[in-house]
């Protein structure tokens, strides 16, 4: 056997907190570059904000009658004068959660199908950084989506945002941990379950029915209302409607923000714990390399 006199013993990698941040940034940058290289996202960005709420808005207008007499009933139940804005915000939050479940929820699974998950997993980077990093560009694209939605609501649906932009942004900030925490937990489960379409449909169905995306919670049967109270999307939708459509100020949403802070901590913790559980399980079962 020939053994060389020169042997390498140490690699060029120099791990530090800063190099960890650079790795996280690299994951974000990679995800963004891949995202923009599929141009179909532009269509979704401009078409969906108007298409999806429109069917609910037209249904509401049909039910309210030609003279709009039924509108008074709705206004009495919701306390909101702008029924179009009410529905548009509810459906937009639903779409946000839906997109997070598909994009963040399937981010690791898509890497697995492409064959790149293992090559990422082989590097000495903190593994949660892959999920966190691939979610950041998704959040950025979602903020673009929310902005385009708001502009289109004003231009095409005649929605009047009389509330505060800053309170709306604050509410969105408080909404992010709950929505993405659920996405993280979902992404981790999908790696193990491989197929999770049924779960996506279940979760978004629950949000659609229990969180009042197009109707007030008060019309739900008694047994359903306590369930709605345990879903963060209920508070997100209520708070964004209040912040953007009414002039009631911070006091009208402070309760929602407190609930969202608690839900955010809860769902981020759940997301992180489920990810770690999946990562340990995958090392035992070999799930990372299985298609």
């Amino acid at each position: 056997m020939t053994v060389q006199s020169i042997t390498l013993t140490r690699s060029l990698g120099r791990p530090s907190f800063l190099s960890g941040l650079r790795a996280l940034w690299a994951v974000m940058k990679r995800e963004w570059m891949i995202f923009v290289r599929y141009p179909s996202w532009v269509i979704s960005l401009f078409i969906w904000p108007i298409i999806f709420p429109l069917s609910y808005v037209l249904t509401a207008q049909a039910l309210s009658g030609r003279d709009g007499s039924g509108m008074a009933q709705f206004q009495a139940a919701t306390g909101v004068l702008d029924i179009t804005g009410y529905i548009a915000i509810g459906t937009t939050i639903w779409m946000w959660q839906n997109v997070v479940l598909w994009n963040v929820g399937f981010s690791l699974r898509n890497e697995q199908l492409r064959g790149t998950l293992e090559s990422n997993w082989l590097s000495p980077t903190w593994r949660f950084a892959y999920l966190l990093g691939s979610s950041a560009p998704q959040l950025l694209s979602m903020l673009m989506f929310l902005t385009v939605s708001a502009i289109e609501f004003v231009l095409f649906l005649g929605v009047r945002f009389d509330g505060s932009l800053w309170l709306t942004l604050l509410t969105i900030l408080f909404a992010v941990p709950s929505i993405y925490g659920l996405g993280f937990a979902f992404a981790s489960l999908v790696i193990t379950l491989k197929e999770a379409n049924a779960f996506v449909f279940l979760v978004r169905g629950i949000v659609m029915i229990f969180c009042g995306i197009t109707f007030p919670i008060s019309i739900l049967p008694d047994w359903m209302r306590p369930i709605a109270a345990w879903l963060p999307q209920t508070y997100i939708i209520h708070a964004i409607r209040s912040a953007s459509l009414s002039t009631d100020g911070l006091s009208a949403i402070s309760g929602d923000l407190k609930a969202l802070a608690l839900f955010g901590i809860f769902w981020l913790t759940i997301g992180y714990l489920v990810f770690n559980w999946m990562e340990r399980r995958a090392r035992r079962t070999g799930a990372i390399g299985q298609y």
Partner: protein
Amino acid sequence: MSNFAIEAKQLVKKFPARAGTGDKNVTPAPRRKRRFFARKEPKAMFTAVNGVDLQIERGEIFGLLGPNGAGKSTTIRMLCTLLEPTSGTAQVNGFEVVKQANDVRRSLGTVLAGERSIYWKLTGRENLEYFAALYHIPPAVAKKRVEELIERMEIKDRANELVEKYSTGMRQRIAIAKALLARPPILLLDEPTLGLDPQAARRVRELIAELKQEGHTILLTTHYMEEADQLSDRIGIIDTGKVIALDTPEGLKRRIDQQEVIRLELTGWHEEIADKLKSIAGIEHITTHQQGEADLWEVNLHAQNSRTALPRIVEHISGNGTRLVNMNIVKPSLEDVFIHLTGKALRD
């Protein structure tokens, strides 16, 4: 620091499996009293790796050979921390694969799944820059290293094109460059020439030889015997989860140098002839391989003494629609050693 680049002791990996598959590596799981809320125990376990011992010297190229399902990939996956062993221990560059997994990852450059291990929607350069960050290479060093590897892999002209536009050979070179980014002391190369055209495969083999000269320890798995023979300092043959032979290529070939290989080329081959040939005294193994789509077969017979066996071989293959096209008596190759030890060809 350990004397060995890689050292595995009694490495075992078992996976839950369906009972009653008939596979001899599937055994009933030990029955335990089940407690309330306890995890459901699988009914059977499949043993993919069954007590592998390996000691790979620093600076050597070690070839790991085995038929499909022999346990090569599972062994490599345990060494690179993707899988946790069920029992046994393994150290890579002196670090324990379970408890010091991140140190192991820093010591390794791994090529698994070849061209699929990189991003096709990124350029070659973007891929390398991305993985350099994941391996915590300082930016200034990374920039220089990426350029060096682009130059070395001969993709400078196309480094800014999306990988999806590359040939398989170019993608494989990017995958190898990715593994070399951090200049890790140990390289795990799983089938690095699989699917490459002969010219691209030759270039990869030359590169592997160069990497050894630069001081890398290389663990190589391959389906190509000539490649293992040409590159490896030592070879381990793995079958049904166990290392059944470990020696230099010459040492392995010496094990069957008493044998001869009668290589026949014929048309009209059928299983009845195989049964007849197996009945001839002194014939130990028969492997067949159809050459292309035509009805032309290569049949290798391992015989203790070709002179006594030949007349009976000719007698059995005459007639019955079979026509002998060519016949040679050759010295055993590494592939023949493999067949002798495992009873099957590497491509099986």
